[in-house]
Every structure is written in C-alpha cells, then in structure tokens.
C-alpha cells in the first residue's frame, strides 16, 4: 500500500478497541494520536472529506465521544501543563491533561478544581466540552463558569483564543458543546483554594424521598458538597431510600495526594448474568446496611469521597460484553418531587436498575453553555445493564416522564435519546456554532 515516494503515512489508524465507557457501541474507529499541538492542523488534510472529533479518556457513556462515520483525534498525548500560578490558582494546560495529573500538580500547592465529576480520569478538554458538574453544584455551578479562556482550532477560522468577553457566542457554544465547535487545544481554568486534602464527610441514611428533599434543602446551606446514593431496588414506602452524604473541606494543611497505582483492575468482562436483580438487590441491601452502620462524620481523603469508583479501574467491564447504558436526567425544581418519585417507582418495579444510582439537587447558578446540562432542579443518574429492547423500552418510559416534567437528558451519558428528546432538552441547540469539519455519532443521531 505505501510506497517510498508517497507522502508521509496517514496518522490515522483503524482500531477496534476504541469504545465509550458504556461499551455498548462497538466497531472499528479511525484514530490519530498526536503528540504535539502543531500536528493538529495537518489532520484534516489526512482525513480528507471525513469529519473529525477530538476525544479524551472516553468516560462519556454513549456515542458523544465516537465518530465512526469519520475519524477521531485522541487528545491524551497532548497533556502538557502550559503554566500554573500557585499564587492565583490559574492553570493553563493542554486539553488532553487529565484531572488526575492536574490534581498531582495543584493539590500540594493548596488548590483544587472548582468542581469535579465523579471520576478523575477525564481530560480538561472533556470537562469543558461536557460542562461537567459535581457535588458542589449548589455553590459552584458547572465547570464552565470557571473557565477563563481556551484555545480553539476551527477548520474555518484557524486557531483562536476564546474568552467569555472576546467571543461570547463561541464561548457559550464550546462550553458543553460536545467538542463540535472546534478542537479545544488548551484550557485556562481558575482553581479554588483548599486548606487540605481531606473532607469532613457526614453520612446520613434516610428512609424515603421526603426525607431526601428535606436533607437536600437543609444541607445545601451549610455543606459545600452534597449527594445521595439511592437504593433503586426499593419500592413502596421505601422508594428513594438511600444514603445522603454531605461534606466540607478540612483546613488542616495535610495535602496528601491520591495514588493511581493502587488501582484494582477488572481484567476481563464479567459474564452477562453476573448482574441480575438478585445480585443487584443483595448489593443494594448490603450497601445500605454497611453505610448505615457508618452513619456519622468521618474524615475522608478527596479520592474516596469524589472518586469512589476510580479505585476499581475498568469497573465498566462488570457489565459484561453487552455493556451498559447510563440514564441521567434533570427535572426542574417545580416538578422534581413528583417526577423523581414516579421514575423511581417505575425503575424499582422494572427490576432492571443496577447499583449505581445517584440523586442530587442542582443550585440556581446558571450554566454558561448553549448545550449545558445543569439547571435548577434535581438530577437522577442510574446505570442499566444493556439488555436490548427491554432496556430501551424502560428508558423510553422514563423519557416520557422527563418530557412531561420539562426535564432534560445529559448527552455525556446518553447512547440512545431520540432527536425529539434532545431538541426538547436543549431548545437552543440550533445556536451551536458547530465547526463544519467536526461531527460525532451522537450529533448525527440527534441533530442531523
């Protein structure tokens, strides 16, 4: 195929191991992995007429980080820090830098990301492209609020430095813009000061949804971080029972780091029958009991508090060959109580949910992106082992409830929402200043 006279070989390689976190969509994907930023501008000419998509560590669950009709640019080799000012907490780094590496740099100097998703194995570009939120949403809002600037490489306008002031429309399009407004080359983020690497974490077991809503209201005032794990197998009077956790940073000057080497690994995909309603039900009961016994306040390091699942690398393989779907919705505050209660009843009755169900209230701080997910209300996230039609039918029922309640679904978690559901979730979607040379499987599905 290649002859000596030919120009440089294509940087794109066909790989079959590039899947998203849910591992449902499989197939061959053309991938380039540049090591330096100057390689980015040459990639479109190698891709020819094919569309491109910059991707990171592929923690998005569905198809927003895949582009099988075109090609993808794996940004994980562009992970250099550009500048960090330990006096002001302003960090500028290439888009492929992971939160895990950033924490290693900034925590010992007393800084922390302004908000963090539930895994540290995400890239800076990915957190911007999905405008991620965390357990402190009620105080900090989504991460886009803390982005000072980013470098964007567009096929039609070249390399741009974008700030909220320099180009408000492009800034708002790119925050949460699913990587479709240009290749994010670097990001400048304002970090927040911490007085140590540990938190005072209070665990409060509660019995039903009413108790959750009062805990959430009461805790938002005096705790920086709040979240609840829900036993989604519990129905009837116990619907929504779970473990509420709320925490504040401790100012003790102990800045110990997390250790990425202590990962436990899931080396193989589990057999499909490993997660069934009996094992999941048993897990949920056990989890509830163990955590109820731990009720009270404990000092906890940021890693187990913010990133409990990162302790088991590749935990998604527990879902076996067919993979899983995650469902994350947000319900506006005026409808949250009724809608969440009804959804949880349907999920418990279905017997399909797994052990990872999280409920959290969002605060009022507006998210800056055209396609930002967080909005005032409550967000519910659950995993479902993928079992074909059965799973899709259940999620379609949930969709109807979310739609009824004027809620929205989270693209980062989605692998199956309908075009209509997407457009209702993000009524401003047509304002997205998409780069014509970029695309994703998700976008093809919901917008074209």
């Amino acid at each position, binding site marked *: 195929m*290649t002859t*000596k006279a030919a120009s440089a*070989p294509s*940087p794109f*390689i*066909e*790989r*079959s*191991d590039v899947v998203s976190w849910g591992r449902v969509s499989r197939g061959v994907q053309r991938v380039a*992995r540049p*090591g*330096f*930023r*100057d390689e980015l501008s040459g990639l479109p000419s190698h891709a020819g007429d094919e569309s491109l998509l910059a991707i990171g560590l592929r923690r998005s669950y569905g198809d927003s980080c895949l582009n099988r009709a075109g090609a993808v640019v794996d940004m994980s*080799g562009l992970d*250099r*820090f*550009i*500048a*960090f000012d330990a006096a002001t907490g302003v960090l500028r780094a*290439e888009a492929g830098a992971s939160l895990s590496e950033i924490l290693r*740099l900034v925590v010992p100097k007393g800084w922390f990301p302004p908000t963090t998703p539930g895994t540290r194995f995400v890239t800076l570009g990915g957190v911007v492209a999905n405008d991620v939120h965390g357990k402190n949403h009620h105080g900090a809002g989504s991460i886009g609020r803390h982005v000072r600037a980013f470098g964007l490489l567009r096929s039609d306008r070249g390399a741009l430095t974008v700030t909220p002031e320099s180009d408000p429309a492009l800034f708002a399009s790119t925050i949460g813009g699913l990587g479709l407004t240009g290749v994010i080359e670097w990001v400048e983020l304002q970090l927040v000061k911490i007085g140590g690497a540990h938190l005072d974490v209070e665990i409060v077991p509660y019995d039903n949804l009413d108790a959750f809503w009062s805990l959430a209201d009461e805790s938002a005032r005096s705790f920086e971080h709040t979240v609840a794990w829900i036993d989604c197998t519990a129905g009837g009077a116990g619907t929504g029972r779970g473990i509420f956790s709320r925490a504040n940073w401790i100012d003790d000057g102990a800045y110990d780091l997390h250790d990425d080497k202590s990962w436990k690994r899931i080396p193989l995909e589990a057999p499909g029958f490993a997660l069934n309603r009996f094992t999941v039900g048993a897990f949920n009961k056990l989890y509830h009991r163990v955590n109820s016994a731990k009720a009270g306040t404990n000092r906890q390091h940021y890693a187990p508090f913010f990133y409990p699942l990162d302790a088991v690398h590749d935990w998604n393989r527990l879902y076996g060959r067919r993979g899983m779907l995650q469902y994350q919705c947000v319900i506006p505050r005026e409808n949250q109580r009724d809608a969440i209660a009804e959804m949880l009843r349907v999920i418990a009755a279905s017997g399909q949910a797994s052990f990872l169900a999280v409920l959290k209230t969002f605060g009022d701080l507006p998210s800056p992106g055209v396609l930002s997910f967080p909005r005032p209300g409550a967000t519910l996230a659950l995993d479902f082992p993928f079992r074909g039609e059965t799973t899709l039918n259940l999620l379609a029922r949930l969709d109807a409830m979310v739609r009824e309640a004027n809620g929205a679904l989270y693209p980062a978690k989605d692998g199956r929402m309908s075009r209509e559901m997407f457009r209702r979730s993000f009524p401003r979607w047509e304002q997205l200043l998409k780069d014509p040379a970029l695309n994703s499987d998700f976008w093809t599905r919901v917008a074209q």
Partner: protein
Amino acid sequence: MNIESERIVILGAGSAIARATARLWAARGARLVLVGRDQDRLNAVAADLVARGAAQADGVALDCASADAAAELAKMVEMLGGLDILLLAYGVLGDQTELERDPSAAATLIQTNFTSAAAWCLAAAAIFEKQRAGALLVIGSVAGDRGRRSNFIYGATKGGLARVVEGIAHRLAPLGARAVLIKPGFVDTPMTASITKKGLLWATPEQVAEVIEAAAERGGPVVYAPKFWLPIMLIIRHMPTFVFNKLNL
C-alpha cells in the same frame, strides 16, 4: 530527593519515553536541557517540566543524527555547569522491507540509531571520565538481542549500540561513573502506533520511565524494561536455531 538539582541532558526529548522520564526528574527538581529537532515542541515540553517542578528546562533544537556531538554536548554542559545524567532517547524504527530494498534508507537508519548515537555516548563518556561521576543512560531495544526477520536492521543498530554502552560501562566502572543500556520491550508510543494489536506484553512509557529513573541510580550495564523481558529474552537468545527458524518473529 537531591538537595542539589541533578543536571540532565535528554537527547530526543520529544519522544514518549523521554517525556515520561523527564517528568519524573522534573518532580525531583532537576535542571534539564532538552534536545530535539523542533524548538516550539521543545518549548512546550520545557514549560510542562517547569510546571512540574524542574528547576530549569531549556530546549536546544538540533538534529542529533547529524550534529557534532562532542561540540554540542560541551555547550550543554556549560549551560548546566556540569552533567550528572545523559539520556539518549532518540531513534527510528524504520520499515524492514523498505530498509532491505533501499540501501540509502538503511544507511540513514544506521547513521541515526548507531553512528550518531555512538558519538554522543563517547562524548558523554569523556565528560563522565573527567568528572569521575555521572550516568550515561541509553535506550536500546530487545530487538538488539537476536536478529530476526521482522526487524533485524533496526535490531542491528540497537545491538551495536549495546556493545558501545557495555564498553563504556566497563571503562567507567573503575572511576565510579556508570553507563546503562535500557532495553524496552513493546511500548505503546507514537513509534509503535501502527501496531494495533496490543496484548499483555505491552508497557506504557510511564512504566519504562520508572526503570530508567532507577537505572540512573544503580544497576546495569543492561536493564530490561519492564523487567519481565529478561527471562523472555534469555529464552529467545538461547533458543536453538532449528526451533528459532520455525518461529515467525
């Protein structure tokens, strides 16, 4: 943690293994000179290393394969005020079929991987000999252990380099200075990106970097990275020819 910053020169500082190793040294507060062909890229690497704790990181753009090694290294040693470690991390894999067909391509590969590399090693050895201290670290390859049909020209350059490093280690040993050849097995880097089936034998650049960091302190003159390649290559080296010839390696 050293109280005085280590003074380190890295040749081929843009490579994935060099980058991972440089980050370990930067975290210890080292002072680094980074050598590669592209000044902008070196500047990006340098900024990253400074953010990670390097006391100094300067990029020097030159083509290691054609530079006057002794003269250039002397300038770098002046920039650092001495030299504690030289890491030679540049090299090209080449395409065996093309190398067999085209003698000039083979000559270029040999110039890059062996001839120029040997000159840098000798230049560093002279400095370490004078200082009676220092560590020369050279990235070789398991491909240099036994010629096999899939990559023996590349393997020959790395095998030749192994003899150079062994000899320098022998020469420096009585003086207290050291030379170590680090032989990585399969490493997932841009150099091997076109190989898509990556199994259990594959290592990350970070794993290899830890071996290199340790090699700067002790051991040698030959270290495999990761270490499990030692028994594997022992078997491959000593396998009878009639068996070896049946293997498609």
